[in-house]
């Protein structure tokens, strides 16, 4: 049995070493020029529901609201912020390039399900802020509104068509003014090549996320695609010195009348692709 002094020394050395390694990683991540730096708003950074009313946790972190451009423009869900989905741009060729066994996932034998169920892996996800993907989502909402308006004009008295047009108008307004403008536009495994493809560091955020195989019915045939899941870091802690603007905001109420109080936050992503908040501003 080792002496108590030695126990204390070994334990203290272990605690110091573990903390030292973790904090060195943080220092390395934040060293030099950030890998990317974006100014996000209340549209992309969601306050927690329970903060201020939750007496058990006094910390504050903001959830990164990001979206996946859905292939199905008619889908109700394609208009909302989400935390994953099946990107329209991810086809079988692209998935095969990422190293997934597409042929096996397309097979008809029992091994197909196993291949799909066990395919999840970590990749780099490129998130575009207020770019073409967002414009595409607005355009989809406009087309949907135009379609609903034409239907309503053909049958002016139909209540469900009047409601449908109203929903489409609300959807367009939400897309233009409230929903997140941060869209996943690409995935890859090599940071340098992704950054070469998306050089604007103030518009393209690259983070680690999970991708797994999936099978869907598209264009009247079953195709293998990918499901983009959770990001490795999807909540960003608000430093104590920057909490003041959030202290005065009303709690989130939920529902259609829940207006998000405006704010901006400069989010930097460092060498290890770990984000942090550099500044918070309110109008």
């Amino acid at each position, binding site marked *: 049995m080792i002496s108590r002094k030695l*126990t204390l020394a070994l334990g203290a050395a272990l*605690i110091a070493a573990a903390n030292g390694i973790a904090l060195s990683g943080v220092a390395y991540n934040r060293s030099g020029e950030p890998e990317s730096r974006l100014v996000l708003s209340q549209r992309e950074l969601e306050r927690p529901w329970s903060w201020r009313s939750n007496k058990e946790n*006094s*910390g504050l972190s903001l959830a990164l609201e990001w979206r996946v451009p859905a292939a199905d423009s008619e889908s109700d869900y394609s208009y909302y912020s989400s935390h994953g989905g099946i990107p329209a741009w991810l086809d079988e060729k692209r998935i095969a390039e990422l190293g997934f066994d597409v042929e096996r996932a397309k097979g008809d034998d029992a091994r197909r399900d196993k291949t799909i169920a066990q395919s999840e892996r970590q990749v780099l996800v490129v998130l575009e802020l207020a770019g073409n993907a967002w414009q595409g989502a607005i355009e989809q909402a406009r087309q949907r509104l135009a379609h609903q308006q034409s239907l309503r004009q053909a049958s002016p008295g139909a209540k469900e068509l009047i409601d449908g047009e109203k929903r489409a108008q609300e959807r367009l307004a939400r897309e233009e003014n409230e929903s997140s403008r941060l869209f996943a536009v690409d995935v890859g495994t090599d940071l340098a090549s992704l950054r070469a493809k998306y050089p604007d560091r103030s518009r393209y955020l690259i983070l680690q996320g999970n991708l797994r195989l999936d099978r869907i019915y598209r264009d009247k045939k079953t195709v293998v695609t990918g499901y983009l899941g959770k990001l490795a870091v999807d909540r960003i802690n608000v430093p*104590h010195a920057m909490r003041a603007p959030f202290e005065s905001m009303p709690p989130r109420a939920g529902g259609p009348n829940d207006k998000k109080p405006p704010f901006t936050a400069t989010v930097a992503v460092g060498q290890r692709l770990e984000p942090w908040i550099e500044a918070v501003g309110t109008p």
Partner: protein
Amino acid sequence: MNPPTRSEAQQRADDIRVFRVELARLETEGVLQLPPEQRRAVDAHHDGLLAGYAAAFDIDRDTQARQLSLGMRVASFLGALALAASVFFLFYQFWGHFGETAQVAILIGAALGSLGLTVFIQGRDASGYFTKLAALVAFACFVLDLVMLGQIFNITPTDKALLPWAALAFLLAYTCDLRLLLAAGICCVIAYVSARVGEWGGLYWLDAGRRPENYFPVAVLLFATPLMVSHRRFAGFEVIYRVFGLLCLLVPMLILGHWGNGSYLDMPAGVIEGGYQVAGFVASALAIWLGVRRSWNDTVNTGITFFVIFLYTKIYDWWWEIMPKWLFFLVVALSAILILVVLKRLRGGRSQA
């Protein structure tokens, strides 16, 4: 020679108690009558030993004390868990009110302070109950420390954090003779090794559980540890290694016996499930055999438990749908009687040997 550990002192005290009871019986039955001076010498020697052990290790000197000790063990276990949870919630409730530097200082200070407190209490707590409380709090503080650093600085979750947690748990377990901390350390090792094996197999580390075979290497490692490293001075440690090793082997086999798609093997799911059902029977039977041979009660009991689970799940698969319920339960009862007969024979053979 003084026994060096608390468990050895307790064992000697138990032996003395049994010896005294049996000696009294032999005297009553007229089989043995020690001369008075020898009797006094033996009594004095034993009294001295018991007094010494009680002073040094706070051992149970009689049956009543032993029963109370069991209650104290349960209370200290529950208290340790509750205290660890309390530390977690205490920090969560107030951490937002401090700046990052203060948060880090509090986390590191709590981890170091609770470790120091554990070592301090260990030197003054012969019973070990309060040391156990303090040690689990020290472990919880260290876990909280690294988890919260991850939250404060948005660090990508990693399985590497399991290594220092395991190291501290083992350090406290071996230096303070605490089985609870050994179990905590083993759980960290199980999670780390299975995550690594899963990652080598192409899985994301948090998804290691999706392929139960990831737990087989750590099962071998745990079961082999007490065979390679003597734990004579640490009562109950070998048992914990063996039981966790068997759980890491038999639970995945049980799962794969009903979920072939979870296997790495490139075979039809039905074949894999059949194979693992057979392997489960063989492995639990081998555990019973090895346990009987080496007098490892823990191994025998774990083997029997899993053999019965494997047997009953098969009986359920085969006959639940096609048999009337009375007949199904009769078959279950008969199989239980059969197991009893087999174990009785095993015990009889063992007694004769």
